[in-house]
Structures are given as C-alpha cells and as structure tokens.
C-alpha cells in the first residue's frame, strides 16, 4: 500500500497534525499493522519536499508531531491520479508452495501430506478471519473478505494440485 498517497488522501478533508494523521490511518487501514511515528514523519517530509503538502501551522511545544499539514493543489491532483490508476494484478507466478510440492516429489517425500498440512493451516487462518468478520463492522468484513477470497484461491489450487499429484510426480521425475 502507498502510505504517502493514503496520508495525502486523509488530508483532503482538512489539515491535520502528524499524530492525528497516524491515528486516522491506524483506525481505518492499520488493523494489523499500525504506522510507526517515524514512518509518518519521513513520509510527510517527503511529501513536503515534493510540494504535495504544506505546513499549515505549528503548535507551541516543539517536536515534529506539532506540525499541522495541509494538502496542496498538486497533492490533490496526485491523489486523484493514484485513485484513477488501476492496481497491477498480482500474478503469483513464484509460489513457494509450488516449489515445495515439486521438491517433495523430486526427493521422494510425501507431497500429499504437505498439501494436507497446508490446507489445515490455511483453514485455521480462514476460521480466525471468519470469526473476526462475524464480530466486526462493515469495514472489518470487507478487509477480512479480501483476505478470505485470496486464501480460498490458494486452497482451490491445493485441491487441484492434490488431484494431479500423480501426473506431476511422473513429469518431475522423468
């Protein structure tokens, strides 16, 4: 995720202090990974240097968290361009799981057990996310659903691979 663009976007509704920005970010997007203060200040100083934000005021007391930032016109354009740009789909072509399966087969280990163990691990996380979703608000549900759909895709791949293990084994060993 582009932290710079996200902080800029949060500034569009009005000027904010550094600590306020961090809090807004964590509340909405930082469920599992809250921002470090250091990240906020390094990002803000970069945005400042690039003319995307300006300092709107400084509260007495000193320290970097006392600066109040406002987005500039260039900043608004930057957010707009970022939002309009489709994200590049992740191709997932370098899968560790695929490598592990092939190596298991190559070395005569049990690849079916490996796939079973992986399924159990994926389902464990899916259960956790499903529980979090049940107790959460709409934002939680959407965040968890995104993760759940990706995990589900992995699991479908596991099942397809499990069904074709014999063929794969004869190919990698030939």
């Amino acid at each position: 995720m582009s932290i710079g663009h996200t902080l800029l976007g949060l500034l569009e509704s009005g000027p904010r202090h550094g600590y306020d920005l961090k809090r807004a970010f964590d509340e909405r997007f930082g469920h599992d990974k809250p921002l470090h203060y250091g990240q906020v200040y390094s990002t803000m100083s970069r945005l400042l240097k690039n003319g995307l934000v300006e300092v709107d005021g400084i509260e007495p007391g000193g320290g970097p968290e006392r600066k109040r930032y406002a987005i500039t016109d260039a900043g608004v354009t930057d957010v707009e361009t970022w939002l309009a740009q489709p994200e590049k789909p992740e191709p997932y072509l370098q899968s560790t799981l695929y490598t592990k399966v092939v190596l298991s087969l190559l070395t005569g280990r049990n690849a079916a057990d490996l796939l079973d163990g992986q399924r159990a691990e994926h389902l464990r996380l899916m259960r956790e996310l499903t529980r979090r979703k049940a107790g959460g608000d709409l934002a939680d549900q959407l965040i968890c659903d995104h993760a759940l759909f990706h995990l589900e895709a992995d699991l479908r791949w596991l099942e397809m691979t499990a069904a074709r293990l014999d063929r794969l084994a004869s190919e990698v060993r030939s």
Partner: protein
Amino acid sequence: MTPTGALLTAGALRKTYGATLALDGADFGIHPGEVVAVMGPSGSGKSTLLHCLAGIVRPDSGEVRYRGRELSAMSDAERSALRRSDFGFVFQFGQLVPELTCVENVALPLRLSGVKRREAEARSTEWLDRLEVSDVAGKRPGEVSGGQGQRVAVARSLVTGPRVLFADEPTGALDSLNGERVMQLLTEAARDSRTAVVLVTHEPRVAAYSDREVVVRDGVARDMAGVA
C-alpha cells in the same frame, strides 16, 4: 476414532456401489455443539459418509454409533424414528414442499411427530424470524428467492431441536453473500442449542465456519485436527 463424550462416531466404514468403492475404512467422530466440515474432491466419498452417519445408507462393514447405540443393529423403523426425532437435514436443492407455505414447510416435521398445528406454527415462526425470513412465512416456495428458500429449509431442519444436523452443500446454490449469511445463522443457532453439525462442503469459505475439518480422499476420512 472414538473420542470420549462423542455423540456420533463411525469406525472402519466400507461401502461399495457395484464396482465402485465409495468408503474404504473411514473413521469419524463429532461432539455435541461441534461443527465439523467434511471436505474432499467430488467422488471422494463425502456424501456416502454423511449418508452412513445419518443411517440412510447401511455400510457394508464397520460401525456407526449414535449415543453409544449401533445404528445397524436397529430396525428400519427404529432408524426412521431416530432420524425424525434426533437428526435434522439440509441439502443443496429442492427440499421444500411446493404446495405448502413456508411456515407450513417449517412446521411439517413437528406436525409429523404429532405437535398441534397452532403450536407447530408458532415455533416455526420463531425459527423463520431467527433465520431473518419471517416476511415470507405465508408465501409458497415458488414465490421466494433461492436464499430465502434455503433459510426456510435451515429453519425446518432445526425446528425439532435435533442433536445432529446433517448439511450437504447447504449453500451450494447461493451467491457468496447469501451463502455466508446462511452459514453464520446456521452455525450460531446450532452452537446455541448444542446441535452437532456434519457439514459436507467443497467450499473453503463455508468450511471456515466449522471447528475442524475431516478430509475424505479415495474413501478414507482423515481428521485434520492437530495437523500442521
């Protein structure tokens, strides 16, 4: 597997259909209030396992015990009575009687076991409400959406307070959002009433509503609790 306190267990189940081996030594166990997903590829024996557990199909060998009683030692009449009194069923399609209204459909198993109409319909209305479909009570199945119909079917499967609910791809015909809501309501209701749920599914996101999974492959069931 015969864990202590298990409600329903199966050991070394074998079942063939003609030349096809559907179950080849399957074990299974479930406790009250537990939701167990039975997963595996098509043709792996998932549904046969469910049918054996529910006493619908008699295995060629092996045993199924419900509260310590061996199902195959019961007469057909005893097994039917057990299915009516202690088991609930929900499937993927076509379970509702088209000529009856939704509330009458839910009330049907109660009526069959002799509950008076007024009381049966009152209890059914509560279940329809719980499944968030009280507004379709007076409609016939043909007049409601697939998601509503499936919730009615879930209400019907739980109205008798079964100790075991057998659910075979219960959300298979629904879109994701409806399917998930049905799973959420079904598992909440089952856990509240300590009903054990045997959930056959090939969908991982449906299986994620379970407490653990049993994977069936080539007729062998493997309990994945403690794996990985």
